[in-house]
């Protein structure tokens, strides 16, 4: 075993590994970037991850479609001849139709916020060990995505971009304690800070804390972002489920059920630009 540690190959390996680690540390110190070696491996793995996720989504959709199988079978019989003839045109049409449906859902957000610039993206993999549900999307710096860009669905806020590679990026969700976003109750205008906890993340919930004892937040109220920095104003975060007192001080906090379905994310939208975009501190307290 001593010869192993004294061998030339081991010494060369140590040098190579040290260079890789220095590169990774330097990239992290610069901030917001994925290390070059992870970028390279990720660029190789990302197409496979996308294919695997697409296969998985196909089987999930298949199960849903089986529920309407009887009706579909009758319709299918009459359309079978036409389908044979129009197969190639139909494939192109379906792809355009899905994209149209996808973008239609975001049209309302775009109409309310003319300054937003969007980049559509697809979830390609999740960090299975992360209790806060972070994931990777298939868009990176070459698509105009940058660190701290907000990520949304048509239902509401999902999170923000934490690291950007060339062809993929990491997203931290609103369940994470790493995220601290200003939020307020749209009905009562009571303001607080949105950030997750380990216990709430298990239930796929987050919380709005630092609420004054005199606030009039109620169950069922909508919570939106207050703007300034990472997130634009008015993005729907979720609805209030419970209101409780903090354990260590006299302020209140509200448990929030996110508007976006974080369990079943497939397609998301990255807001690559909005007026007033900055890089506020997103570290949790």
């Amino acid at each position, binding site marked *: 075993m001593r010869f192993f540690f004294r061998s030339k190959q081991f010494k060369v390996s140590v040098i190579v590994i040290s260079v890789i680690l220095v590169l990774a540390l330097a990239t992290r110190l610069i901030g917001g970037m994925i290390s070059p070696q992870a970028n390279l491996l*990720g660029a190789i793995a990302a197409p496979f991850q996308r294919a695997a996720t697409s296969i998985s989504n196909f089987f999930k959709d298949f199960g849903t479609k089986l529920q309407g199988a009887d009706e579909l079978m009758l319709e299918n019989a009459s359309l079978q001849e036409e389908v044979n003839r129009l197969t190639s045109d139909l494939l192109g049409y379906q792809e355009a139709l899905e994209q149209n449906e996808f973008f239609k859902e975001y049209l309302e957000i775009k109409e309310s916020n003319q300054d937003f610039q969007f980049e559509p993206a697809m979830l390609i993999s999740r960090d299975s*060990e992360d209790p806060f549900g*972070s994931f990777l999307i298939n868009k990176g710096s070459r698509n105009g995505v940058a660190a701290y860009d907000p990520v949304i669905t048509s239902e509401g806020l999902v999170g923000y971009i934490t690291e950007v590679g060339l062809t993929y990026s990491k997203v931290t969700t609103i369940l994470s304690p790493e995220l601290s976003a200003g939020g307020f109750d749209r009905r009562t205008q009571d303001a607080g800070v949105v950030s997750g906890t380990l216990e709430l993340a298990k239930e796929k919930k987050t919380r709005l804390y630092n609420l004054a004892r005199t606030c009039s937040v109620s169950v069922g109220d909508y919570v939106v972002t207050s703007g300034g920095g990472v997130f634009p104003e008015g993005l729907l975060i979720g609805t209030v489920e419970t209101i409780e007192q903090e354990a260590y001080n006299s302020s209140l906090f509200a448990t929030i059920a996110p508007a976006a379905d974080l369990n079943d994310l497939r397609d998301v939208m990255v807001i690559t630009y909005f007026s007033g975009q900055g890089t506020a501190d997103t570290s949790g307290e």
Partner: protein
Amino acid sequence: MQKGKRRNNDYTQIIVIGLLALLAFLLQTTSLLPLRIGNANPVLLLPLLVAVCCFYGEWYGLILGLILGIAEDGVANSICFHTILFLLLGLICGALSSYVLNKNLSASVFLSFGASLVYFVIKWLWFFVLKGYAGVGVYFLNTILPSALYTALWIFPFYAFFRWLSRRRRGA
């Protein structure tokens, strides 16, 4: 001729290990197959690394640990945490397998459970305890421990596969 044949075998082994690592990575990071049982999520790359260490030694363990660690860092929100941990686990498991333990199923299971516990406990300490999150004790019992045990159990299929491969190679 023998040397050329041995070299071809080495390249074949590397390709097989690479493809298996890619498959394990895809199964772990996508929803291709539902592997989750309750709160327990397996880290398939870890028993794969242990199995490779048991059959191929510390060099393969070192290199594969480095590559798998970089891949994990690419998915998780960590600065070389997985790179260093996988590298060290690969080296240690490979060295233990080569110089201390017998190359059999018991040793592999022992290494798998050991590596899995070390990995999950260090990860729990680094990402949750040191950050001061509330509820870390409950999280350890509900998620970390079951995930560690579930991960370690995956050594059986990986060991069986590499044992079959090894016998095939010897037979050829």
